[in-house]
C-alpha cells in the first residue's frame, strides 16, 4: 500500500556544499546527571524575521509559531539518566500525530544511542515556556527539530568528553555504542555511568556541531510508533484510565440547546437518592465552563442513568433562534465585496461548508482535584499554560499552586486547543469539594462540543486569451474561536476581545495559511467572520480554513481549465508557480494513472495544496454509480465511494516516513468525510446529530480499498508540518472527482447535507440516551 522512502540525498548545510554552516549555541546545565539544552534565542534577531508577505510565499503560520518558541528553547532539556536511559520531557501534546516517535528518533540519531533508550514524556504546564508549549498549526516538529538536535548534540559531546576523561584517551578515539561510549581497545563506559560522570556543577555554554545529513541514521527512515506495543495491549493511559484517589466518575446533564443554562433541578432529592450517586450540583455556564447539572457516582454508568432521570429547568442558550438557513443568510450578508472585475470571461461561484464536528474518539475528559489552597488537573491539553494561568486566576491561587498534567490524547483535531473538560472538572471539584473524573458523553461532544464553523467561500475568476486575469476569493465564516491565544494568558486575554479574535487572529491565521499557488494575475483572498466567538462553540479544526478554501479554489481551477479546453492536470502543470507542487502533482498523476479510461459514473479528481512548508497533491477515483450510492449498511450512510486515493507529500525533510504516511492517510479519511458525508445540522439552536451513526465520519464501508501515500525525497534541510497537511488537497480532489463523475459541480458540503435526513434525531431531553441492553444479542 505504502511506498517506502527510496533515497535521501545529503542536503544538510555543509562547507563542502558551499553553504555556510549555521552556528548553534546551547548549555550543559548544572544538574546531578547530564543535562543539555539549546539556545535558539540569538537567532531571533528581530531584523532577521522577514516582513509578512501576502500571499504566503514566504513567512507563514509555521514560521510565526516556530519563532515564538525560540526564545525559550534553552529551558527544554535532554537528559541522561542513572538507569542508562535518555529522557526528554516534551512540551507538546501527543494526540496520535506521532510526535513522541519523531522526537525520540531525532534525539537518538543526534546522540548516537539506540531508539529504545530514549523516553519521551509530556511536560506538565510550564509557564516559563510562554509561547513554547502550544501544540498547534502542525508545528511541533518544525519548531522542535533544531533545539532538540542542539541539546542532543551537546549531550553526545559531553558523553564523549566524560568517557575520554574516564578512559584517559583522546575524545577522537571514542565512539558511541549500543550501551555507551567505547574506546579503541573496546573498553566501554556505560550511559548509566556517564550520566554521573558527565554531569556539571555549573551551567556552561557550548557550541555543538550537528551531524551532517549523511551521518543521520534514523532521520528519514520508517520507524514504528514508540507506543505501539502499549496501544495494542491496552496499556496506553488516557485521562480516564488514571487512578486518582477518590476521583469518582462525574458527568454533566447538559442543556437542550447550545450554551443553555441550568436554572433549577426539579427532582434533586430523587436523583441524589439514586443508588451509587454521591453528588448532584448545578454548574454555572461561563466562558470557560459549559456547565449544566453535575452528577458524581460510583461508575459512569450510574452517572448516565442519573442524567436520564434528572428533571432540569433550563434557560435558553446563545443560538436558540437559529437554524442552518439563518446562519447561511447571515454569512451571505457579511461577505466582503470583490475587487472590480476587469473585462474578460467570468466564472463565479459560492460554495457552502456546513458545520462539522471536531470530535476525536476520546470524548472531552479530565481529572481534577481542587482544594482551597491547591489544584491539580490531568487532561489532554494543547494549551496547558493558558489553562493553568487562567484556572489560577479564576480560583485566586498563585500559578505554582495549580499543577497541570498533560495526558496523551485519543485524538484532538484541534479540539484540545481548548480545555473545556479541564475547566469543567476543576469547577465541579471546586463546587463539590471532592476530586472528580469528568467525562463527556458522546452525544454532548457532538451537540455542545466545539465544531468547525459554517462558512461560505465565494470565488470569482476572470480569464481572457488563455490567461487568468484575476482570482478573488471571499471566505466568510462563523467566528473561529481563537481565545486560547498563543497558548498562554497574555495573548489569550487579548484574543478575548471579539474585535481582536476576528480582526487579528482570524485574519492573521487566514492570511498566513491561504494561498493561490498559480500564476494568475491579480489575486485577492480575504476573510470575514460573523458573531462573537462565544455564540457557537468552535475551534480550529484540523487544517482550519484550508480544506474549504482549497476545495473551492480547486473546483474553480477545474472550471477554468474546462473553459480553456484544458485537462485538469495539464492546466495545473502550466499555471503552478511552485516546482515542489509540480513534482507532487506529477507523482500522483503517474502513480494514479491520471487520464485512464473510466466507466460512466466514475471519475478521477486531482488537486494540490501548499502549507506548513510542505507541498501535497492528491488523486482520487470516485464511484458515483447508483449501485454504489445505493449500498445499504444498517444504521449507516453510504453514498458515493472513493475507490482509490493516491497522495504525494513533500515536507522538505521527512523525519519518519511511516508516521508521515499515517498522517496523510488520516487526512484523506477526514477529507472524504468532509466532502461527502460528515456534518452537523443546526435546528432551532441545537445540532441534530448525536451519534457516530448520525454524523457520518468515514467508516470501513466508505474507506478506499486502495490508498497509496508517496513520500517525496527531501527537498530541504528542515521538516515541515504533517498533522494537518493531508486534508485540504484530498478534500479538493474528492470534490473535483465528484464533479467530473456526475457532471455537476457540488456547491454545498458535504454533498449529502441538503438531502432529507437519513437518521432519526435523538431527543434533547434527556440530553443523552441510556445505554442499550442488547449487547449479547448482537454478539458475533
Amino acid at each position, binding site marked *: 500500500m505504502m511506498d517506502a522512502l527510496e533515497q535521501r540525498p545529503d542536503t544538510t548545510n555543509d562547507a563542502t556544499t558551499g553553504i555556510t554552516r549555521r552556528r548553534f549555541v546551547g548549555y550543559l546545565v548544572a544538574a546531578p546527571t547530564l543535562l543539555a539544552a539549546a539556545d535558539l534565542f540569538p537567532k531571533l534577531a528581530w531584523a532577521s524575521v522577514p516582513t509578512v508577505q501576502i500571499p504566503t510565499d514566504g513567512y507563514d503560520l509555521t514560521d510565526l509559531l516556530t519563532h515564538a518558541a525560540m526564545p525559550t528553547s534553552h529551558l527544554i532539556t535532554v537528559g541522561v539518566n542513572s538507569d542508562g536511559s535518555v529522557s526528554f520531557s516534551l512540551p507538546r501534546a501527543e494526540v496520535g500525530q506521532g510526535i513522541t516517535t519523531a522526537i525520540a528518533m531525532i534525539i537518538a540519531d543526534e546522540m548516537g544511542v539506540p531508539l529504545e533508550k530514549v523516553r519521551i514524556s509530556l511536560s506538565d504546564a510550564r509557564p516559563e515556556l510562554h509561547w513554547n508549549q502550544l501544540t498547534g498549526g502542525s508545528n511541533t516538529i518544525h519548531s522542535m527539530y533544531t533545539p532538540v538536535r542542539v541539546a542532543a548534540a551537546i549531550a553526545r559531546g559531553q558523553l564523549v568528553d566524560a568517557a575520554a576523561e574516564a578512559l584517559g584517551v583522546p575524545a577522537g578515539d571514542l565512539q558511541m555504542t549500543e550501551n555507551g561510549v567505547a574506546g579503541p581497545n573496546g573498553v566501554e563506559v556505560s550511559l548509566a555511568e556517564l550520566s554521573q560522570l558527565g554531569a556539571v556543577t555549573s551551567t556552561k555554554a557550548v557550541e555543538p556541531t550537528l551531524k551532517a545529513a549523511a551521518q543521520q541514521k534514523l532521520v528519514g527512515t520508517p520507524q514504528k510508533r514508540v507506543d505501539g506495543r502499549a496501544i495494542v495491549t491496552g496499556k496506553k493511559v488516557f485521562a480516564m484510565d488514571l487512578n486518582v484517589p477518590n476521583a469518582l466518575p462525574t458527568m454533566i446533564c447538559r442543556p437542550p440547546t447550545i450554551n443553555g443554562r441550568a436554572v433549577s433541578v426539579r427532582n434533586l432529592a430523587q436523583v441524589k437518592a439514586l443508588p451509587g450517586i454521591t453528588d448532584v450540583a448545578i454548574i454555572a455556564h461561563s466562558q470557560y465552563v459549559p456547565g449544566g447539572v453535575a452528577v458524581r457516582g460510583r461508575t459512569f*454508568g450510574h452517572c448516565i442513568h442519573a442524567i436520564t432521570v434528572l428533571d432540569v429547568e433550563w434557560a435558553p442558550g446563545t443560538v436558540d433562534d437559529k437554524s442552518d438557513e439563518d446562519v447561511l443568510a447571515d454569512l451571505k450578508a457579511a461577505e466582503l465585496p470583490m475587487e472590480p472585475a476587469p473585462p474578460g470571461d467570468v466564472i463565479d461561484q459560492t460554495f457552502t461548508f456546513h458545520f462539522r464536528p471536531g470530535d476525536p474518539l476520546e470524548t472531552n475528559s479530565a481529572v481534577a482535584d481542587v482544594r482551597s489552597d491547591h489544584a491539580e488537573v490531568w487532561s489532554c491539553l494543547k494549551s496547558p499554560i493558558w489553562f493553568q494561568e487562567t484556572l489560577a486566576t479564576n480560583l485566586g491561587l498563585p500559578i505554582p499552586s495549580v499543577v497541570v498534567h498533560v495526558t496523551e490524547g485519543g485524538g484532538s483535531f484541534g479540539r484540545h486547543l481548548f480545555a473545556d473538560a479541564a475547566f469543567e472538572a476543576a469547577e465541579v471539584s471546586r463546587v463539590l469539594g471532592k476530586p472528580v473524573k469528568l467525562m463527556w458523553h458522546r452525544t454532548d461532544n457532538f451537540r455542545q462540543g466545539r465544531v468547525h464553523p459554517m462558512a461560505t467561500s465565494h470565488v470569482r475568476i476572470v480569464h481572457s486569451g488563455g490567461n487568468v486575469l484575476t482570482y478573488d476569493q471571499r471566505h466568510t465564516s462563523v467566528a473561529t474561536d481563537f481565545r486560547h491565544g498563543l497558548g498562554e494568558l497574555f495573548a489569550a486575554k487579548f484574543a478575548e476581545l471579539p474585535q481582536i479574535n476576528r480582526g487579528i487572529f482570524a485574519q492573521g491565521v487566514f492570511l498566513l495559511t491561504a494561498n493561490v499557488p498559480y500564476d494568475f494575475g491579480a489575486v485577492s483572498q480575504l476573510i470575514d467572520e460573523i458573531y462573537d466567538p462565544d455564540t457557537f462553540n468552535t475551534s480550529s479544526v484540523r487544517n482550519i480554513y484550508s480544506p474549504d478554501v482549497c476545495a473551492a479554489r480547486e473546483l474553480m481551477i477545474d472550471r477554468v481549465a474546462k473553459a480553456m479546453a484544458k485537462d485538469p492536470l495539464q492546466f495545473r502543470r502550466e499555471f503552478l508557480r511552485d516546482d515542489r507542487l509540480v513534482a507532487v502533482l506529477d507523482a500522483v498523476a503517474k502513480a494514479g494513472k491520471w487520464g485512464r479510461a473510466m466507466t460512466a459514473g466514475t471519475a478521477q479528481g486531482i488537486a494540490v495544496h501548499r502549507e506548513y512548508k510542505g507541498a501535497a497533491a492528491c488523486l482520487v477515483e470516485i464511484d458515483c454509480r447508483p449501485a454504489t450510492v445505493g449500498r445499504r449498511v444498517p444504521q449507516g450512510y453510504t453514498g458515493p465511494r472513493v475507490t482509490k486515493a493516491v497522495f504525494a507529500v513533500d515536507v522538505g525533510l521527512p523525519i519518519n516516513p511511516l508516521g508521515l504516511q499515517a498522517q496523510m492517510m488520516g487526512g484523506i479519511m477526514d477529507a472524504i468525510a468532509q466532502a461527502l458525508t460528515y456534518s452537523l445540522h443546526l435546528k432551532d439552536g441545537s445540532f441534530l446529530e448525536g451519534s457516530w451513526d448520525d454524523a457520518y465520519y468515514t467508516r470501513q464501508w466508505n474507506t478506499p480499498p486502495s490508498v497509496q501515500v508517496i513520500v517525496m525525497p527531501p527537498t530541504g534541510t528542515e521538516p515541515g508540518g504533517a498533522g494537518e497537511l493531508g486534508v485540504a488537497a484530498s478534500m479538493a480532489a474528492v470534490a473535483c472527482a465528484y464533479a467530473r463523475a456526475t457532471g455537476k459541480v457540488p456547491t454545498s458540503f458535504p454533498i449529502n447535507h441538503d438531502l432529507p435526513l437519513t437518521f432519526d434525531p435523538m431527543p434533547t431531553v434527556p440530553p443523552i440516551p441510556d445505554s442499550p441492553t442488547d*449487547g449479547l444479542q448482537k454478539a458475533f
Partner: protein
Amino acid sequence: MPTYTFLLNGKKVSVACEADVRLLWVIRDLLGVHGPKYGCGIGVCQACTSHINGKAVNLCSVPVSQIRPTDQVVTIEGLGATVGKELHPMQQAWLDNDVAQCGYCQPGQIMTAVAKVKQARAEGRAISDADLDTIRNVCRCGTYARIREAIKAGAAKMP
C-alpha cells in the same frame, strides 16, 4: 446489592453492583481494567468491543446481570493468553503494520478483527474485503487502510 461473578481474562472475579450497570463500567470503574474504551455508550462506535465466550460484544450494552458465573470475558489485556502467547497474532500484525495513531479505538478494533476472522472461518471462508466493509468500529484518526491490511496479515497467522 447483588454480587456478580464471572471469569475476566481467565481469572474469577466477583463484584457487588446494581443489576443494570453495564459491563463496561463494571470492568473499567469497579475492576480497574482499562483496555476497553468508552466512545459512545450506545453500541455504535465499538471502542469497548471485547469477547464474551469468544464472541465480539460491546460491553457498554450488556447489563452485568446478564452475565453468568461461567461466562468468559476477555478484554484486550487477555487476548494474547487465549492463544498462549504474550501477543495474539492480530496484535502482532497491528505492530507490524504500525496501524495505530492515537490508539484509543485500537483495543476495540483488534477484538473486532479477531472475531470477524473467526466468523468468516466458521462460514468456511477467508476474510474478504466485503467482510472488512461490515466492520463498524470508528477510527477517528482514519487508520482504516492499515487496519484492513493488518487484519488480512493477522488472519494468515491466526491458529
